[in-house]
C-alpha cells in the first residue's frame, strides 16, 4: 500500500518537473515616463538649449542618460518641459496626461549651491494654480550648482507656499525627481 503510494508520487513528480511553463506576457508599460526634456529658449532671441534625462528601460536595468547645457548670465529663458514614454511605439506623450489632470500635478524647481537661477511658473490649471510644464528661467550672475526638477502627483496645492513653488508642504507622491548640474557663464 505504502510502497505503491510512494511510487505514484514519484511518477507524478517526475512528469510535472518536466512541464514547461509558457512565456509570460510582457506588460504594456504605457504609464512609464522614460524621458524628460527641458528646453530653454532665450526670450529675446538666440539658440535654445536642452537638458534631458532618458532611461529607456525604466527603473533598474541600464543607467539613464543625462544631458546638460550651459546657460548665459542675465538672461530670461522660456522653459518648456516635454515628458515622453519612448518604451512604447509610437512614443507616448505624457504631457497630455499631466495637462488633463493639471490640478493633480505640479512641478517644482529647486536650486542648490550658489546657482544664480530662479524659475517662475508660466501656466495654470483649471483652478488657477500653477502646473509648471511651461516656465520662465532667469539667470543672474555666473555660477554653478544643481537644478532639481520634481513632479508631484496629488500635491496639496493649497498648503502654505506650494503655489509659489515651495515643495516643503506639498506632499503627494514623486513621479519625477531629476537633478541637473548647471553652469551659468
Amino acid at each position, binding site marked *: 500500500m505504502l510502497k505503491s503510494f510512494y511510487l505514484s508520487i514519484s511518477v507524478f513528480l517526475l512528469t510535472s518537473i518536466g512541464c514547461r511553463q509558457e512565456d509570460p506576457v510582457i506588460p504594456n508599460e504605457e*504609464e512609464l515616463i522614460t524621458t524628460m526634456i527641458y528646453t530653454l529658449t532665450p526670450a529675446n532671441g538666440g539658440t535654445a538649449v536642452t537638458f534631458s534625462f532618458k532611461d529607456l528601460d525604466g527603473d533598474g536595468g541600464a543607467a539613464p542618460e543625462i544631458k546638460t547645457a550651459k546657460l548665459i548670465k542675465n538672461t530670461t529663458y522660456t522653459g518648456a518641459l516635454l515628458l515622453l514614454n519612448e518604451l512604447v511605439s509610437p512614443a507616448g506623450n505624457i504631457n497630455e496626461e499631466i495637462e488633463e489632470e493639471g490640478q493633480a500635478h505640479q512641478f517644482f524647481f529647486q536650486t542648490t549651491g550658489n546657482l544664480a537661477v530662479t524659475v517662475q511658473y508660466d501656466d495654470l490649471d483649471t483652478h488657477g494654480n500653477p502646473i509648471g510644464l511651461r516656465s520662465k528661467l532667469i539667470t543672474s550672475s555666473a555660477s554653478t550648482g544643481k537644478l532639481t526638477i520634481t513632479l508631484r502627483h496629488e500635491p496639496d496645492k493649497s498648503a502654505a507656499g506650494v503655489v509659489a513653488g515651495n515643495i516643503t508642504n506639498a506632499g503627494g507622491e514623486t513621479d519625477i525627481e531629476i537633478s541637473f548640474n548647471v553652469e551659468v557663464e
Partner: protein
Amino acid sequence: MAGICLLWNIPNSLVAQDCSVIIRGQVLDESTGIPMEYAGVYIQETKQGVSADSLGYFKLEKVCSGRYHIQVSHIGCENENLYIHLTRDTFLYILLHHHAELLNEIAVHGSRNDNSTQIVNSISKEEISRESNKNFAELLEKIAGVSTIKNGSGIAKPVIHGLYGNRIAIVNNGLIQAGQQWGNDHAPEIDAFMVDHLTVVKGAGALAYGGNGLGGIILAENNPISPDPHLHGLVNYIHQSNGRGHTVNAQVQQHRSWASWRLSGTFKAMGDHKTPDYFLTNTGKKEKNLGFQLEKKWSDQWNSRFQYSLFTAQIGILRGSHIGNLSDLESAIGRPIPFFTKDQFSYQTESPRQSVRHHLVRLENKLFLKNDQVISINYGGQLNERKEFDVRRSGRSDLPALSLNQFSHFLEGIYNKAGNPGNLFKTGAQFNFIVNTNDPETGILPLIPNYQGVTASLFGILQQQKDKAQWEMGLRYDLKSINAVTISKTLPRTINRYNPLFHNLNLSIGNKLQLEPRVNLTTNLGYVIRSPEANELYSFGLHQGVSGLEEGNPDLRQEKSLKAIASLDALAFKKLFFQVVGYWQYINDYIYLQPQKEYRLTIRGAFPVFSYLQTDASIWGFDMMATSEWNKHLKSTAKISLVSGQDRTNHLPLVYIPPPQVQADLQYSFGPNGVGSNSYLSLQGKQVFKQNRLEAGQDLLETPGAYALFSLEGGTGVSFNHSLLKFSFQVENLFNTTYREYLNRLRYFADEPGINISLRVNYSF
C-alpha cells in the same frame, strides 16, 4: 464540542420512558486532569441543573430516559455542550478546556489524543469568536512569544519567536495555507470565525506539515461536527467604536443520518480608524467570508470530510503612507499628522488598497483498519487572487499595480499506527504543485516572476513511551523544484528561465519527561533546511514597502536552522500553573534583505538597492506564563516574552525582532449563578519596551519608545429555551494613549489607533 466525553453505561433494567435514571459524573480540566470544583451541569430539555462538589463530582436524579442536550460550565472555561442518548444510569467524564494557555493536547499529529512532545499553546473557540472583528494574526498575540508584523490596522501577519513570512507555516485544517507569504503587507487569508481552535507550535518539529516552519507552525482547526440531530448554531455581532465597525457572523450545523454539515458566513465593514488625535484616512476594510463543511460516515471503516471556504477582503492602506521616492519618505517621516489626513470619517477605501480573494477546497478521507491503523488520503486545492492598487496617473488607479493569481494542488497519503498510549508511528507522502502567475493588466513589470513550484515529500514520525519519558523522532525529506520565468529589466525585454532543484531535510527529536506529578519538562531539537523562495531568488523591481529597488539573488543557498526549545510546565499548590519556554536558534545562511551602499538612478531619483544576502544568525529568548486562581472568583495571568536576534557574521542585531513585552490580566467572575450566566469583569495591562538593540543606521528612524496599554472587559449571559444569549464589552487602549509599534510599517507615518470600545452579542441555540 471541544472536550471529550466518555460514556460508561452501568447495566440497569431498561424500561420505556423510565423516569428514574441517574446521571452521575465528574468534571475535569482537560490539560491537567484536575477536578473542576463547583462546575455547573444543566439539562436543557428538563431544566434540571446541579453544581458539582469540591471534587468535581455531580449527580442528577430522576431523569427520564431520552435524548438530551447537556451544558457544562465553569468559571473561566468554555461551555461544554454534550448530546446524549440516555437509556439507563450513566456516568460521564467531562473534560473542560480550562487553561487554554496550557493545553498541550494538540493535533500536531492529527488527533487531539496524541500526546506530543511539541511545545504548543492554543486559543479556544470562545476567545476566537469574542474577538474575531480583529485580524487572524492579532488573535494569536494572546500567546506569549507571538507578535504581529503590520501594515496598518488592516494587515497583520504573525511572528513567532522573531520569525515570520516564508519561515512560518500556517496550516488550515491540515492544509498549508497558500498565498503570497513573502510580502510583509500580505496578511493570511483566513476567517478566524471559521476556526474552532488556534494553536501555535513553537518548535520546529511539526514534520507532518513541512512548509518551512523554521520559526514555528500555526494550526487552525475545526472540530468534528457533533453528532446531534438538532439544528444548532450561533450568531455573533460585534460593534467597534474605532473605525465604526460592524462584524456579523452566523453559523449553523446539524447531524443528519445522511451526513453532518456546517455553514458559516461572516461580514465585516469598518471605516477609517482614529488615533487619539486624527483619523487614519483610508484605513477602512470590508470582508465577506463563507465556509461550508460536510462530514459523512460511509461505514465504521471509512469517513470523509469536505470543506470549502471563501475569503474576500477589500483593505485600505493609509493614504499618507504611499510614497514615490526617498524624498517623499523623508518628508512624510516626522510629520505630526500624515499627509492626506481628512477631518471626516469615511467608510470608503481608495488607492492605495488591496483586494484579495482566496478559495480553499479540501477533501479528507480516513480509512480505519485493524489494530488501530488509520490511512488518510487528502486533497486540498487553493486559488489565491491578489490585486494591489496604487495611486496612479490618468485614471489608472483602478488598474492594479500588482495582480497575482496563485493556484495550488496538494495531495497526501498518511499512514498512522497507534499502539499503547504514547506510542505512535506515522508516515506519509505529500505532493504539492503551485502555479503563480502575474496578470499583465498592471502595465508594470512584475516584482516577482511567474513560477511553478513542485514539491514531493516523505516523512515519518515515531513516538515511544518509556516509563515517565516520552520520546519522539521525526524525519522529513522534500524534493522541491522551482520553474521561474523572468522578464529582463534591460532592453529589449527578454525572457529568462530558471529551474533550480533543492533537497530539503528536516529532523526532529523530542522528549517529554514527567519530573513530578503535574510537572513536565518538554524538550525539542529541530533541524530544518529551507530552500529559498521565488521572491528571494528572482524578485526585481521597485518595492514601495521598502522604498528601494529589490533585487533577488539566484545564487542563494538553502537556509539551515537548528532550534532547541525547552518548556517546563508545572502546577504548584493546586492553584498556580506556570510555563517557562526557553529557546535558542542557530541559522546558517540566513536570507535577509540588505540595503546596499549603491544607489541606482531612476527618473524618480536615486533609490537604494536592497539585495538578498545570506549571513549566519542566532535567535534566542524565552516566554513565561503563570496563571493563578486566588479563589472561586479571582484569577490572574501574567506573561512575559523576550527575544533577541544577532547577525553573527556582521556583528549586528537582526532587524524586525519584537521588543520585550510583559502582560498581566486580572479576572473576576461572578458565577456560577445558574448555568451559562458566566459573568465576568477583567482588567488587562500590557507593557511593551523600546527595541533598543538596534544600532544607529539600521533603521530610517529611531525605534518607537516604550508604552503601556490597558483594557477592560466584561460580560454576562442569560439562557432560555435551549439557547444562550451573551453580552460583552471591551475597551481597548483605555487611556487613549498615543504610541507607535516597532513592527508596524506605518510607524514612519502615523500613530496607532486610540481608544476602541467593542460591544458584542452572541446568541447560540
